């Protein structure tokens, strides 16, 4: 046919340069750009048009490269971020404004965002907020909550200064500056994100690398028999090898918590959830592109499975693991005082049952990586939140020594807890070892949703009493958590929930139990808050009911009962300082008064079906591991040429560790942050800074950085007997110490460099002081807690059941904001996730395994957020700082649910509050 475009010469213009591609019919432009043109700034989050990460301009119009056949662009102009930032003024302005506003957290959505915004600004140089939202509405961001992105586009559009961006070096105007603690400087690792050059998990493998694909169970539970794999390899073009349990040289078993290690790399005989791996296939990129997993020789036999906890606890239920009778994996328990008596004596009480579902982490970057095997050493480049845990797991799986394994994390396009668990790492390592060649893998969106961990669904029954004067009198919490097929971080959830289910309140009589029950579902694991957000939903909703029964103002009721210094927590832990919840709640008083008044006015005037309401909720979260050692170590050194090197092993998954840890170190050492050179994370060169979880990095690794900075400083000062107040100036070959008018010079050339090339270095470790919990959960679980209170205004369409959040005020006690710009970013991003959990997100295995059916908030769903930074310093925190990463989401969902009730009287007790559920609840009221 004359009109066929020859597949080996598809000519088009890429970023103003003529190029020619060679692609089979139906290849997606995203694939061609990434693998043939090296254009790895075009990200792939879903391959289905649902995330917008792959947005490019074709003849100036933004389209999804993953939905564009490469042949389609023959003769056309294609533009991507890396090209645009070189020649397009809008793109240049956007890359600056994104840095100013802190609009790129993990950075995986940034190319799609900026490219979409370029198209907007070319057509509409001075857009308003609605136009900005329309333009970026097709690009999902899971980190930022969109507000900073919207502000960045507005800023780039007009050079008009937006809220907070007042050039004062405070929130919203990130500049470079000295970076001293408390200054809202830009992300230090931001430039690579806004230029599209940061390499994520799928961006490191050279083109042509062998590709690995995993064969997964199509059933929640199935027996299976593998066919003749040697024959399969021998007879299938381009297939190099297969992997199964038989190829695992060490233990075919891994897990997050040593006492509960139970998950196989490849299932043997039987699978326990839909999407569980049974084998892997490795082949050339060409062969694997067309490889259909259905063609793999395996016979499946579906078996009876249990999806819900009730069914799993039934007598005749299939048992998932021996030794875990009744499918109960573990229990957590906290008891203090006498709860039955207190509830008996209470003047009033309320009780309720609450249900939440699986929630998907929804990071835009699917798990991906690349591994090599050279000279007996495996090197894995993959996205992770816990490089040293990855290495430990591989040691056992591969049967190698630690020094034969190197983990070099790539940039991480969001983690939120799920990338604490290993995923692609063992497949890659085994594949590289078996074939002797480098191997790469990228999970499809469906794979990541099917096989990686989820937030635990919870069934919670709670009863709370109070006296007439408003004081709490007893709280009983019973939670059953669906922990899925394998332990993962389920034990942590079971432990954390009873410790936190009181909320940040003084409750003398308390009994809380959380049970983790296995089902044939993907493993439930760590997800921002480890079960605490679920517990807060129940407790904070009932607090509103208590306040209503007492005819008390819900905010004042909480202030009255707020935990204070010198009062024991439900674990009997007494803080002499640093308890900041009352300060957070009080900080909401002005917004509470203002919005209550506005809402009363709106509801009095409106005649249609719209009703507005305001709700509040509080939360707390213990930073670091529960009663367990969790040290972090930081190393820093000075080279002869005056370079100050910080070995920064704390994974930055978008939350900002690279910036915050550097700011703390620079402050302690006494130099501007811009002078630091950051190395790592990399298990061969950075000491263990622990995992990025439990809101511990700023607190724990931050302290290690502070101690290291102080130690290095002390060594230098002692070399010239200078006082602690002396100032340092580090230059090429010399350190100048200025002390009270005297100047000392340390000639670095005269010092002997060590093996790492450092003439001076320091390495310090910090481990938060905790004490074990007894059988009643009494002890010292955490060295510090962080505190939060959110206020939310919603509009409910009572005829349709839709809920539109209109405003949030979020008060967070962070002890000391190391970087207020980053604090705001965490708060807004956490609220967006809490909003999603409250209103739209529900993972249903087999039904919502893609981003088309699994809905997360878009730019149009997030209202403005007023962030109120409260600083009640903590004696243990670096410069008083407390953790924040998980606190940001705990009060959000209950605040929304309380606002819905305030608006229309409907109490939602099953999440998410979809329009259908809200509508049903409203109908229930009027019958």
């Amino acid at each position: 046919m004359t009109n066929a475009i020859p597949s080996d010469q598809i000519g088009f213009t890429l970023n103003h340069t003529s190029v020619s591609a060679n692609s089979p019919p139906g290849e997606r432009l995203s694939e061609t750009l990434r693998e043939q043109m090296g254009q790895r700034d075009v990200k792939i989050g879903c391959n289905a048009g649902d995330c917008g990460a792959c947005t490019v301009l074709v003849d100036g119009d933004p389209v999804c490269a993953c939905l564009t056949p490469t042949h389609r662009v023959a003769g056309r102009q294609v533009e991507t971020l890396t090209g645009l930032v070189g020649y397009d003024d809008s793109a240049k302005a956007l890359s600056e404004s994104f840095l100013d506003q802190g609009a790129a957290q993990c950075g995986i959505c940034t190319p799609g965002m900026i490219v979409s915004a370029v198209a907007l600004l070319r057509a509409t140089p001075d857009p308003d907020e609605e136009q900005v939202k329309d333009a970026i509405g097709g690009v999902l961001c899971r980190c930022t909550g969109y507000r900073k992105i919207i502000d960045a586009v507005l800023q780039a559009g007009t050079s008009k200064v937006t809220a907070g961006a007042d050039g004062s070096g405070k929130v919203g105007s990130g500049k470079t500056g000295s970076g001293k603690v408390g200054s809202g400087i830009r992300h230090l690792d931001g430039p690579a994100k806004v230029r599209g050059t940061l390499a994520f998990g799928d961006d490191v493998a050279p083109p042509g690398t062998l590709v690995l694909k995993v064969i997964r169970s199509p059933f929640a539970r199935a027996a299976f028999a593998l066919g003749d794999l040697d024959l399969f390899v021998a007879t299938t073009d381009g297939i190099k090898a297969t992997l199964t349990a038989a190829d695992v040289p060490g233990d075919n078993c891994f897990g997050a918590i040593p006492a509960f290690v139970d998950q196989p790399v490849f299932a043997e005989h039987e699978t326990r959830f839909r999407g569980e791996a049974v084998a892997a296939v490795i082949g050339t990129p060409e062969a694997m592109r067309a490889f259909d997993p259905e063609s793999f020789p395996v016979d499946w036999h579906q078996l009876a499975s249990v999806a819900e906890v009730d069914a799993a606890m039934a007598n005749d239920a299939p048992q998932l693991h021996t030794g875990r009778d009744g499918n109960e994996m573990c229990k957590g328990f906290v008891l203090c005082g006498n709860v039955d008596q207190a509830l008996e004596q209470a003047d009033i009480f309320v009780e309720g049952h609450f249900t939440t579902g699986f929630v998907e982490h929804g990071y835009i970057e699917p798990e991906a990586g690349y591994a090599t095997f050279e000279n007996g050493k495996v090197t894995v480049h993959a996205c992770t939140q816990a490089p040293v845990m990855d290495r430990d797991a591989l040691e056992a799986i591969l049967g190698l020594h630690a020094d034969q394994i190197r983990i070099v994390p790539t940039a991480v396009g969001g983690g939120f807890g799920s990338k604490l668990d290993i995923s692609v790492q063992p497949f890659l390592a085994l594949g590289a070892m078996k074939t002797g060649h480098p191997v790469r893998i990228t999970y499809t969106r469906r794979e990541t949703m099917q096989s990686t961990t989820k937030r635990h669904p919870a069934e919670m029954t709670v009863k709370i009493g109070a006296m007439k004067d408003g004081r709490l009198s007893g709280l009983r919490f019973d939670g059953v958590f669906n922990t899925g097929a394998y332990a993962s971080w389920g034990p942590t959830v079971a432990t954390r929930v009873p410790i936190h289910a009181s909320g940040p309140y003084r409750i003398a009589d308390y009994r809380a139990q959380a049970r983790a029950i296995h089902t044939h579902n993907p493993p439930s694991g760590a997800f921002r808050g480890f079960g605490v957000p679920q517990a807060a939903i129940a407790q904070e909703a009932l607090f509103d009911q208590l306040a209503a029964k007492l005819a008390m103002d819900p905010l004042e009721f909480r202030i009255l009962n707020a935990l204070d210094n010198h009062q024991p927590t439900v674990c009997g832990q007494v803080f002499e300082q640093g308890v900041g919840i009352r300060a957070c709640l009080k900080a909401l008083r002005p917004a509470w008064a203002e919005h209550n008044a506005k809402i009363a006015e709106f509801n009095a005037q409106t005649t249609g079906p719209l009703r507005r309401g305001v709700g509040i909720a509080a939360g707390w979260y213990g930073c670091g591991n529960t009663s367990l050692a969790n040290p972090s170590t930081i190393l820093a050194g000075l080279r002869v040429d005056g370079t100050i090197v910080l070995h920064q092993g704390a994974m930055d998954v978008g939350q900002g560790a690279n910036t915050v840890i550097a700011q703390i170190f620079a402050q302690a050492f006494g130099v501007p942050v811009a002078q630091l050179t950051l190395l790592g994370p990399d298990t061969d060169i950075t000491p263990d800074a622990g995992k990025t979880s439990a809101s511990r990095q700023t607190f724990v690794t931050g302290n290690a950085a502070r101690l290291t900075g102080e130690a290095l400083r002390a060594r230098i000062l002692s070399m010239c007997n200078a006082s602690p107040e002396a100032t340092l100036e580090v230059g090429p070959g010399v350190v100048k110490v200025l002390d009270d008018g005297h100047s000392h010079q340390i000639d670095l050339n005269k010092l002997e460099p060590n093996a790492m090339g450092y003439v001076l270095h320091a390495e310090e470790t910090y481990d938060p002081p905790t004490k074990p919990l007894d059988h009643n959960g009494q002890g010292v679980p955490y060295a510090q807690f962080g505190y939060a209170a959110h206020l939310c205004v919603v509009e409910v369409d009572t005829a349709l059941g839709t809920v539109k959040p209109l405003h949030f005020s979020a008060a967070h006690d962070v002890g000391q904001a190391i970087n207020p710009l980053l604090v705001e970013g965490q708060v807004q991003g956490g609220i967006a996730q809490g909003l999603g959990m409250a209103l739209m997100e529900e993972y249903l295995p087999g039904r919502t395994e893609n981003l088309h059916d699994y809905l997360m908030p878009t730019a149009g769903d997030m209202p403005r957020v007023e962030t109120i930074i409260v600083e009640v310093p903590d004696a243990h925190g670096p410069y008083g700082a407390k953790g924040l990463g998980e606190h940001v989401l705990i009060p959000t969902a209950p605040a929304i649910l309380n606002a819905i009730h305030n608006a229309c009287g409907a109490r939602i007790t099953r999440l998410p509050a979809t329009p259908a559920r809200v509508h049903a609840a409203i109908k229930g009221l009027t019958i």
Partner: protein
Amino acid sequence: MGYYTPDTVPDALEVLRQGDATIIAGCTDYFPNQGDICAPTKLLDISRVAGLRAVSQTTDGWTIGAATTWSDVINADLPRAFDGLKMAAREVGSVQIQNAGTLVGNLCNASPAADGVPPLLTLGAELEVISLRGSRRVPLVDFITGVRQIDMARDEMVVAIHIPAPENAPRGYFLKLGARKYLVISIAMVSTLVALDAGGRITCARVAVGACSAVARRPGALEVALIGQTVDQLMGDPGIWTRHLAPLAPISDVRGSADYRQEIAGELCKRAVMGAIQ
């Protein structure tokens, strides 16, 4: 196997006659339906066929070519009867999807939640379906025969949507109910086309409800009941919106229950009619 980009309709039809070709337009349904495998295929890309990417006025109405995207419709200068179609276009997916996806692709994909179907039903659209055997016109209401089923043979393709010139200068309207703002498939949607006489009485009322049955439907009884009504009369008869919706047969899915869809369909009809009037 091959990628064909004919310049003319006859060339395109010749590719189809030879067999095994898949027609692709914006590919926004094609690729997601493919999944993650890129298997060798024979693709017929109609985006370069001359004249197919156009919205044009004819002697008796309007024609929307098969390669016309949602963005093209948004940008076209059209009478207010098309306001509902434009509102629907603005709510399809995202800018990225609107820039690539076509109206005809939306109809041919025949999803129960296709946002293009209700407004085009109210406009009385017909499809021009042709092959080397000849050409035929099929009313949209007959073209989509079920969930993902259309009246089209393997050697045929749709070249255009024809819309008769609207009489009495009616106004179109569209309302979509989804669980988030962008990138959302409708839980339910309603499109209307309404004209009033000088006395404020409804003289033309067309209503189409989507995602509440296998194929979007026009509840004829409701349309009849609306004729002659004024806004005030409608306000006085809230039951009118639900009385006539029994023929809908919604299903339950992840987006909402059947009961919910049935219950809110009336409210959406009311708002979409009132919206067209105001």
